[in-house]
């Protein structure tokens, strides 16, 4: 670029920036359309990657076979936070117990995918696409869950993290946000140029356009000063989701994940509150509880659903761990949730009750749980579009939410 052009460019871009930057924050937000998006219902999907051990998270202490199958890693009844006389919560999830008591937390046990795969990758892919057994599905269920909108917010679908996961990819524009604070091009002048260069580029699809819109919107939000979130990526993700919800920026579906659940070894330490699983659950439960506290009364607009690709073997393996299994426990949190109850039909853990003689059997299809949240909370009743090839319908819902 020759000096002359460079000066003109700098002047123009400085003007462009000043045009927004000189306005007071509230006015900027209005100008950018954030405020006009208003309050929305938000569905937050949480993925525990690596196959969390549902049997040691929501523990069937009333099931004698549980203790037979896991001589060294079963959690003693007295260590659990009892839920209903049959199930007990892993003590590391203590932060969630008050939510349970307040009936804001529901659990669906023995939920999962009908597909038999024990491959992390395939099972995650199936759960994220919402089409178990079908690899050709191009998009994710959370993207399809969005209702058609005339003037959609650029942040109606947000995933926290450096990647855009399959769950939220699809026809509706979705943005991946590593962190709100760093979600911009640091050099403002360059940002303008990039926008001109890539705003209509083909191979980048709509990514560039959506990105620049979302950058403008998120830049206007300031900072979430809420406390109580645990250190680490997951807590940070939930904190930022809460932030976008509180700002009324038009967030409808959000996604966050937390890895490290593949506990083939040392799942439980010598003490029930020690070991890899307890460590993971502490971060997980603390973050969810902090999110709940941060949103307060606003939780009436929010539903959080957790899932993991499959459960783990009912029997412990040779190394105080568990191998890849089948059914799992899902959590659903929100003010509109009929909480304080463990939903689903318990299949039992006796040898003949196990799936392929090794795993907890699936009695609730994960799509019935997600379907209920999409139907009742987001108000999208066309579930055949959200879960193609599956007859999700209110008749099959576990009943976790008021219709």
């Amino acid at each position: 670029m020759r000096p002359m052009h460079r000066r003109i460019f700098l002047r123009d871009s400085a003007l462009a920036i000043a045009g927004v930057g000189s306005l007071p924050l509230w006015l900027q937000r209005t100008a950018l359309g954030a405020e006009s998006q208003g309050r929305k219902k938000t569905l937050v999907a949480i993925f525990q990657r690596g196959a969390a051990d549902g049997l040691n998270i929501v523990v069937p202490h009333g099931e004698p076979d549980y203790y037979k199958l896991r001589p060294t890693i079963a959690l003693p009844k007295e260590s659990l936070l009892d839920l209903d006389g049959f199930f007990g919560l892993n003590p590391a999830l203590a932060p969630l117990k008050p939510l349970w008591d307040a009936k804001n937390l529901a659990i669906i046990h023995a939920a999962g995918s009908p597909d038999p795969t024990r491959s992390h990758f395939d099972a995650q892919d199936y759960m994220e696409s919402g089409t178990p057994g079908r690899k050709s599905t191009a998009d994710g269920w959370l993207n399809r869950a969005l209702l058609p909108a005339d003037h959609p917010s650029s942040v109606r679908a947000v995933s926290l993290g450096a990647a855009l996961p399959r769950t939220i990819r699809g026809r509706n524009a979705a943005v991946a946000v590593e962190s709100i604070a760093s979600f911009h091009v640091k050099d403002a002048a360059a940002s303008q140029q990039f926008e001109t260069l890539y705003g209509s580029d083909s191979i980048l699809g709509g990514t560039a356009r959506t990105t620049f819109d979302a950058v403008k919107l998120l830049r206007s939000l300031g900072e979430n000063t809420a406390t109580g979130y645990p250190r680490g990526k997951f807590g940070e993700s939930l904190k930022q989701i809460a932030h976008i919800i509180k700002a009324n920026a038009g967030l409808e579906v959000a996604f966050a994940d937390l890895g490290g659940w593949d506990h083939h070894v040392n799942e439980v330490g010598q003490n029930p509150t020690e070991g890899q699983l307890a460590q993971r659950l502490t971060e997980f439960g603390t973050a969810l509880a902090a999110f709940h506290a941060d949103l307060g009364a606003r939780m009436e607009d929010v539903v959080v659903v957790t899932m993991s690709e499959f459960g783990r073997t009912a029997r412990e393996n040779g190394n105080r761990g568990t191998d890849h299994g089948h059914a799992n426990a899902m959590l659903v949190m929100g003010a509109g949730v009929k909480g304080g109850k463990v939903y689903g039909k318990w299949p039992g853990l006796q040898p003949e009750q196990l799936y392929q003689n090794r795993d907890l059997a699936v009695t609730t299809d994960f799509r019935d749980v997600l379907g209920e949240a999409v139907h009742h909370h987001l108000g999208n009743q066309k579930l055949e579009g959200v879960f193609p090839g599956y007859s999700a319908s209110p008749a099959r819902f576990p009943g976790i939410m008021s219709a």
Partner: protein
Amino acid sequence: MKRTFALLALAALVCLAQPSAMSPDQKLTHALNRLTFGARPGDVERVRAMGLTQWLDEQLHPQSITENTELEKRLAPLDTLHMSTSEMLRHYPSRQVVKAISEGRAELPTDPFTRAVFEVAAKRVKKAQANNPQGDEKPLPALPADMPTRPRERVAYLEALPAEKLVAALEAIPQGQRRRLADLAGPELRRKIEVLSAPMQVIPTDLVSGKILRATWSNKQLEEVLVDFWYNHFNVFLEKGADRELVTAYERDAIRPHVLGKFKDMLLATAQSPAMLFYLDNWQSSGAQAPARGAKQTRGLNENYGRELLELHTLGVDGGYSQQDVTEVARCFTGWTLRRPGQGRDFFFNPRMHDRGEKHVLGKTLEPRGIAEGLQVLDILAHHPSTAHFIATKLATRFVADDPPPSLVSKMEKTFLASDGDLREVMKTMLAAPEFWEPARFNGKLKSPLEFLVSALRASGDEVKNPPSLNTLMTKMGQPLYRKAEPTGYSNRGADWMNSSSLLARMNFATSLKHAEYGAPDFQRK
């Protein structure tokens, strides 16, 4: 400004023109784009002068290529890259060794500098473990009275000091000042300052630096691209416990020598590598009847490696195996374990841990034969048609297109089977196929963060002052080096890397390169 955009464009974020056939010059550019970490200025002319066929042949025979002396100069200080694991652990502190020393189970090294490095590491660990990390912070010791204050003179003074005194002098200098001195110092002093500043980071940092430097500077570009591909295929997560110290030898000894060799050799090398045995827990897997190794040890089968061996390393998830096969394969590998945990962890077969029953794998009955069972399983897998298909598809996805043409995959697959899994022959088949050179391929695939970042460095000729700092950027772009926790490795599909967050990170990287003109801290002009 122009430079920034040129960089982005060079880094092939975009594709535009699509004529009916690639022009000869497009072919050169295409080959450089796909088979290297990006063209450097002058590369197209160089390949044109040499002839594309000759250049391809040379890249397929990296041993015939004279290595770049610039690379060798930069790699020289990174001594861990050439050490065996046990040698490395004698020179640089690991968490386990530091713990052993603090508990009196191991002694400090005798060499004064190494000793100081271990002491610094032990102090750090102690401080991190203390409830109040700032509580016992002592003021820095007094600076040596005769140490000059001007940076250049100070560097000369430090370079002349014997090891014992050097450590004391360095400890008296605040961290920030030490960094600045390191920039002025010669390679030896610089290395010592870096090692003392972060002793526990040396091993992973050398590994990351080595990868970025090789990708940027090596003349054996295809080999580097393939090492990246195959490490990712046989992925190991650096941050899983002892793997922090095992990955260096793993990549160097199990992956690198075989990337243009026989697949079966690489498969065996990974199966017996301490890094993989530890990562996928096989070192702890034993037959249910095997005697326990002590009160705290448990025994029994662990399926982790058995499953990933079938799903990710060989047959592929649709390769035609069952849960039963996973369990049986895992039984065959019981007893494939590690000796001397914490001191190098060599592979060894422990018959006492081995399941002595008969096994049935993929329809074949395996008589109890100890270690030979696992070897036989690897042999079956390495020659299985599903493996040929899976590997061919993956290579074609990486080098040709996100959804590679089945006709191309089929050719590569045939070569794999006919050549006893000769990976050089498979690559040759791919490069000889018209599908590789179709015009639609030209600039038709988005780069992974690593390709993007290194190709921008190569295109601009920018020197990275502190290569490990680039890993922060790689993390922002979703591809921290050696740190994919899941055994799947990173995606080979370009489209999977495109999203708002990574787009912004790429733009920010491009602008930070631009700012190097004005002396931004991360980069310096060559």
